[in-house]
């Protein structure tokens, strides 16, 4: 009954790659190369993360719009309308929305990125693929929120042109700074997420912590108030919060009202770089052992 194997020399093995599994981890360069080989997978995880946002709801994508516009609208009404916080020039709603754009990308993405390993537990304990894809593709929902908010801002600008006759945002080279701010947000989110996603796999407390910590972080970021309310000599300190610099950069690029302080910018960039490098190192080091704990 047993089937005799063919003579082995008759089998063509050319074109087959040799591989090796060892307890030692692959280097970061190998990991990144592998990540590229698996690039087809990014979209699947991104699409999955998007679908998870309104899975089983009847309103579907309309929920996404509500989840962005409702909090932004209500907050703008309370802070600008009821409390009368000054905006340093532009209409408060526009000022607040522009501040929220990069923040919403950061805040919403970070939560999804943090849970990315945990949420795909079933998959990563059964099938191999570069795990780095998970935190990377988990920024998709945040990007969608960002896109919705940008559309809202676009129509707001049109509205003010119509009723006040003023273009608050115009097409000018400074807009590139806003684009850079968005890219920096993505880098920073993933960098922080590399730490939190691995930690979340071991200590589910991480997500709870982030949820409660985020509103405070937002208050330390010049979103509801302009940076000018901070005394001039202390203003550079805000650079310790990279999101503050990013938010200011976006407002400067769009509304032209931001305050780009060289010292704080440098501090922020350094911190983003540091988070990124340490995040990649940490993720690469702890990835395997955290999967054991999932």
């Amino acid at each position, binding site marked *: *009954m*047993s*089937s005799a*194997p*063919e003579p*082995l020399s008759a*089998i063509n*093995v050319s074109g*087959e*790659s*040799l*591989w*090796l*599994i*060892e*307890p030692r*981890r692959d280097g970061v360069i190998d990991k990144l190369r592998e990540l590229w*080989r*698996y690039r*087809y*997978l990014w979209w*699947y995880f991104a699409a*999955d993360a998007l*679908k998870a946002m309104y*899975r089983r709801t009847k309103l579907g994508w309309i929920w996404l719009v509500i989840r962005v516009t409702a909090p932004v609208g209500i907050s703008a009404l309370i802070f600008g309308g009821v409390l009368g916080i000054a905006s340093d020039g532009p209409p408060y709603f526009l000022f607040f929305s522009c501040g929220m754009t990069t923040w919403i990308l950061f805040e919403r993405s970070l939560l999804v990125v943090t849970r990315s390993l945990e949420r795909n537990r*079933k*998959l*990563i*304990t*059964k*099938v*191999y*693929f570069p795990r780095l894809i998970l935190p990377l593709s988990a920024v998709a929902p945040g990007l969608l929120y960002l896109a919705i908010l940008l559309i809202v801002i676009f129509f707001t600008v049109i509205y003010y042109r119509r009723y006040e006759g003023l273009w608050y945002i115009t097409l000018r080279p400074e807009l590139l700074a806003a684009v850079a701010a968005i890219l920096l947000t993505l880098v920073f989110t993933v960098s922080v997420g590399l730490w939190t996603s691995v930690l979340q796999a071991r200590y589910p407390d991480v997500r709870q912590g982030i949820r409660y910590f985020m509103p405070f972080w937002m208050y330390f970021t010049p979103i509801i108030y302009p940076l000018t309310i901070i005394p001039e000599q202390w203003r550079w300190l805000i650079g310790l919060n990279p999101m503050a610099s990013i938010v200011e950069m976006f407002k400067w690029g769009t509304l032209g009202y931001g305050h780009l302080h060289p010292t704080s910018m440098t501090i922020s960039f350094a911190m983003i770089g540091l988070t990124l490098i340490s995040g990649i190192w940490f993720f690469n080091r702890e990835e*395997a*052992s955290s*999967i*054991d704990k999932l």
Partner: protein
Amino acid sequence: MHSLVVEGISKRYLVPRPLKSQRTETRLERLRSFFSIPLARELLGAQEVWALRDVSFEVERGTVLGVIGGNGAGKTTLLKVISKVIAPTAGRIRGHGRVVSLLELGAGFDDEATARENIFMNAAINGIPRSIAAERFSDIVDFADIQNFVDTPVMYFSSGMYLRLAFSVAINMQPSILLADEILAVGDLEFQERCLQKVRDLARETGLTVLFVSHDMEAVSRICNRVIWIKDGQLHRSGEPEDVVTEYQNAAWEMLTSGEKPEAKGSSHAGRYGEIVDVKLLSADGREIGSPPKWEDVYVRIRFRTYRAKTQARCGVDLFCKGVLVLRSAQPDLIWVIPEMVYEALVKIPASLLSETNYTINVGVTLTRAEREEHALVVNRALTFMVYGADAKDASAGKHRMGVIDPTLEWSLEKKADVVRA
């Protein structure tokens, strides 16, 4: 040429040390565990658990390697290490080509996505570009036999369809090494057969190497070229399928029955009504023997007695081989027995009936009083013996497949004269 070389693989897990006892039955204990000091578990440190310890083996190209062993022996951990899902603690593995794993039914599947989407998703997980997946698409659908359900979300699939799709996707990913963990348990017989056939064909034609984890010993001995037996995380045995499987089955059967003491539930050799005094294996001339030769009659003698008057008795035996109930035989009539006398029942197992392998016998005596009052005395595993053949040194015994019995049957071959010649 080796397709896979596993060298001294070990895997250690660190599991949290349990807090005092894990007993949380009472409400108070449950409450206490709820309010236990946070992080206390963490501070206690972790306990080492070795799922695999120094496992080494080599697999040639085109081999179907069976991996057997009890639950929790480390079979799945081994496959997970080979598929890179978990990192080994020590050792290394060298291999050729793409490894595709079927570790769990529908692991890479999204229930809410359609079969079509899942096929592309799985291809992506295996690092296969969409264009190549599209080329193989019709093959996958055809083998899975789901032509009419390509655009149906897989959560509406029956478990059989699910399995067919998962298996079909896996073998169409051009694997050089296929890791299959207990996946065929769900499918119907026809599909199981088709899968096994396909695995064997691919192994022969394309040099596919298969690691086949299964508890279906019949399938393992049929399709595997070699079998390894993992026990407590270690490589226990490795060799020809028939040898390893037989040894494994015997060991499993012994494990199952050795824990049972005569007093244990369901196995009571003595009771209020009587007792089984002893059970022996006898040769034709009445000698007590340990293992009978195949060519001689052998007797099972059951000695029992009753404590009660007006009792009828009936003896019976169950003969097991590799955990299979080969036969059950009982004395045809009830006989009257009187108290304080020892009775002896003899049952003959004729020569040339048993196969050259291990057997176990359970013995039962039913005592019946006044029609309805029935009491059973049972001795599980009363006898364990091995039947030996004409040439005990004949190494081929066990090499070729044998049934659980091996009776001498009558054959005839005649030349028929009335066949018309062409």
